[in-house]
């Protein structure tokens, strides 16, 4: 399979295996605090996987390891064949917990920053990014600074910025953790649509079991510190053509939620 990259060239043909991300015996400690221990699981290419677990359970650490921002103490993280930190960094885009929009740049100029880093001239990067503002419900807010945007809009700009990096792997770290529950529900629905458009490997960290079940096809439940994989659940709830309310109150969904919550305890 070919994929066109940011600069228009064609990426090399992918290796035959279908593993997107593989964690093998991963251990990570910060000083005396053991954040992760013996984490082993695989994520299929182009799948959506949610990681849930109690707060401070090393979930963010797992994402940073995947992104190549950290190195493991033991074990390996393999992202589409890359095991070095630099190699992983080149393949992953991380959407941080805080929106981290640059306050001196407008919404549009925040969204184009990855393209700019890749050497695309700013005017061209803007033209390429502008259409997404319509799809993301951000029209007329292109030239507004982050301070004037609502929390939900800031998260959408932050997501767009991550998306525009055009990486194969998207890592989302509690993307809606800072939002109120109503906005959060709207954003989950929106993200579901946005992710449907771009088939990529998505790894989503959240402490909200419901969010993980709605947004992913597979849910990895992790324990409190040190983080270990407790169980892995396949989400086989029919979502097509159903409203959010119908989904979250369906029998399969409630049963899955119960087993996930049970695993966390």
């Amino acid at each position, binding site marked *: 399979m070919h994929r066109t990259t940011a600069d228009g060239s064609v990426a090399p043909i992918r290796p035959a295996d279908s593993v997107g991300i593989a964690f093998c015996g991963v251990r990570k400690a910060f000083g005396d605090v053991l954040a992760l221990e013996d984490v082993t699981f695989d994520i299929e290419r182009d799948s959506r996987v949610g990681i849930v677990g109690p707060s401070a359970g090393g979930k963010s650490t797992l994402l940073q390891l995947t992104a190549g921002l950290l190195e493991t103490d033991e074990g390996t993280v393999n992202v589409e064949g890359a095991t070095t930190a630099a190699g992983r*960094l080149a393949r992953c885009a991380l959407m941080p917990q805080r929106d981290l929009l640059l306050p001196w740049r407008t919404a549009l100029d925040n969204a184009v920053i990855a393209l700019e880093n890749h050497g695309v001239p700013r005017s061209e990067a803007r033209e390429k990014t502008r259409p997404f503002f319509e799809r993301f419900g951000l029209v007329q807010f292109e030239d507004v600074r982050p301070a004037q945007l*609502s929390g939900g809009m800031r998260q959408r700009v932050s997501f767009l910025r991550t998306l525009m990096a055009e990486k194969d792997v998207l890592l989302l770290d509690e993307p809606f953790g800072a939002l109120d529950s109503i*906005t959060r529900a709207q954003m989950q629905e929106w993200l579901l649509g946005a992710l449907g458009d771009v088939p990529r490997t998505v790894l989503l960290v959240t402490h909200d079991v419901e969010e993980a079940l709605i947004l992913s096809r597979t849910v990895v439940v992790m324990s409190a510190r040190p983080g270990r994989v407790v169980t892995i659940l396949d989400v086989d709830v029919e979502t097509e053509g159903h409203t959010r309310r119908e989904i979250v109150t369906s029998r399969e969904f409630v049963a899955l939620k119960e087993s996930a919550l049970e695993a966390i305890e």
Partner: protein
Amino acid sequence: MSADVDLRSAAKAPGESTRRRPSRWSRAWRAYGLAGAFILALLGIWELWVWIFHVPAYLLPSPSGIAVALKNDWGPYLAPAMWVSLREVLLGFAIAAVAGVGLAVVLHLFAPLRRAIYPILIGSQTIPIVVLAPILVILLGYGIWPKLVIVALICFFPIVVNGVDGLRLVDDDFIRMMRTLDATRWQIFRKVEFPGALPSIFSGMRVAATFAAIGAVFGEWSGASAGLGYVIQQATPNLQTARIFAAILILTVIAMALFGLVSLLERLLVPWAPRGGRM
């Protein structure tokens, strides 16, 4: 779906309430009115004090006496001296701003250099400029150069220190974010660290702006034939105290004007930053 909700909530800028914005004048009054009233009260007491106790003008001139000196001496002494000092202050400050920001950037980008130079830089500040000034005059002569060097030396330090701190204290999360978006070291500096440090750089420059006039006076005292420092030096043995006060007043105005200019520049260049350091 969520878009229209957000549109409504974002239409109103944060911090903007339904309360009517106060007019320009009432805001100016709230900002500076109290300071102005306080100064007027002090001047009144001063004037009365001199008048009641018959304080001789060479010891303490009254505010009205200073005003008269300002008017009479403006043409022959004060105005020409003011231009000389103003030039020293502005040029010296400009040199310090360029060199200070430049050194802060270099020290930030090359950590070993920072470890080597930063302690020396702080040590250099313990050398009293008053002692250094005559040596600089011997080295550089009676012209404008020793004054520029002294003004620049005094202004340099707060700009470098605030610059280095501002660059170093940029949130690591921003830098991590940039790394996942494939930014090079230089791109991180140019797009995140430098703009992020601008508020801090400007607060260093505001502090430096208040020092610049003092530097010019030190320089002129150590050897000059013009400038407000020179006027003060000449007036002292002649007991022309009112003229000294008038010169000090002008120096204060110069310092405040430079402070205002820096604040204005900050407002233009860093419009996104939270406001602080108003006069």
